[in-house]
């Protein structure tokens, strides 16, 4: 029987953000040096989209698409399994800390837009469409550009970082402006 004290760190849901950031930095060092790969997510999602497109438009059409043939081949590889791992890791972590919770409408959303489940799901779907289109156009997301690219001082990644934050701040202040009484 493991004492509750020794499990306290595992069970504490939130860790210090600087510690988590430093550990993600160390993880980057490991992926670069051991596997010669950066951390990235959005290419893996584009690969999954290719796999989902196969039953819809046929394997031949997917194979004939330049993007799926060359840039995001729908197959199990390092990048697509990294995406699966990210899902599993968060699942394991939330179960271990007993913070796994089914939820559809987050607090900050509900305070501004009300408790409607349909409204939140539709917005999340549309937000997902826009964010991944942006990520593929920029050739990276918060992981591939924001962390992996920025830490290599890539011009593309710092451009992405600054424009993304500016755009997000502007969007947030428009969407979440206080309602006048």
């Amino acid at each position: 029987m493991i004492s509750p004290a020794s499990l306290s760190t595992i069970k504490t849901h939130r860790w210090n953000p600087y510690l988590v950031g430093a550990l993600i930095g160390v993880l980057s060092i490991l992926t670069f040096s051991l596997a010669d790969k950066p951390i990235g997510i959005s290419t893996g999602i584009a690969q999954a989209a290719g796999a989902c497109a196969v039953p819809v438009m046929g394997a031949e059409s997917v194979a004939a698409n330049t993007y799926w043939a060359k840039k995001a081949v729908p197959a199990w590889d390092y990048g697509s399994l990294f995406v699966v791992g990210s899902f599993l890791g968060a699942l394991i972590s939330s179960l271990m800390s007993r913070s796994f919770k089914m939820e559809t409408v987050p607090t900050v959303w509900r305070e501004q837009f009300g408790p409607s489940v349909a409204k939140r799901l539709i917005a999340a779907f549309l937000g997902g469409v826009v964010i991944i289109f942006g990520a593929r156009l920029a050739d990276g997301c918060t992981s591939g550009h924001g962390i992996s690219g920025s830490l290599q001082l890539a011009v593309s990644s710092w451009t992405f970082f600054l424009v993304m934050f500016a755009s997000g701040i502007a969007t947030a202040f428009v969407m979440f402006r206080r309602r006048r009484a």
Partner: protein
Amino acid sequence: MHTVFAFITGPGLLWAGLLFGIIFGMLLHRGGVTDYNVIVNQFLFRDFTVLKVMLTAIVVGGVGIFILHGHQLANFHIKSATMLAVALGALLFGIGMVIYGYCPGTGIAAIGTGKLDALAGFFGMIAGAGAYAMSYDWIAANILPVADLGKMRLPQLVGGPEGVWYAGLALMALVVFALVNRFHRHPIGCCTQG
């Protein structure tokens, strides 16, 4: 270039991807950035967790890879500075991130913590990535070539020694953290509830 420590190759890369992904997903959850509220509150300047996590990761990872690269123990993987595409993509990304409330990585991880809105956004991302694949030939012909600087790094573009760049990066992060901790106070009751 093959580097000495890069022993993970071939089929081993599949397991490495899965394992590194699991660690990444755990860290995203522990950092609190799988929480919609934490992400949206960053863009509203109510919570600086996202910035703290990202900048610390950039400094620690950056200095580490700078040192390894200097000893030929790591390769750089630079994405092309296709400036129009990156700027337009980042513009869309910022809008999408606030509406979705997650980024692609934290969204995937948030599904693992039980967030069903994150799952709806995942279906959106599948649709959006499909739309991009369909538009790719046109984008590759008309958008990607505009202001393409290639695999450019800041020290090449602006000049100056690498060491100074990384020292400056660390200093900038420390200044940002000091400012955030000096001027930002968590409003009571804000930003902690899941």
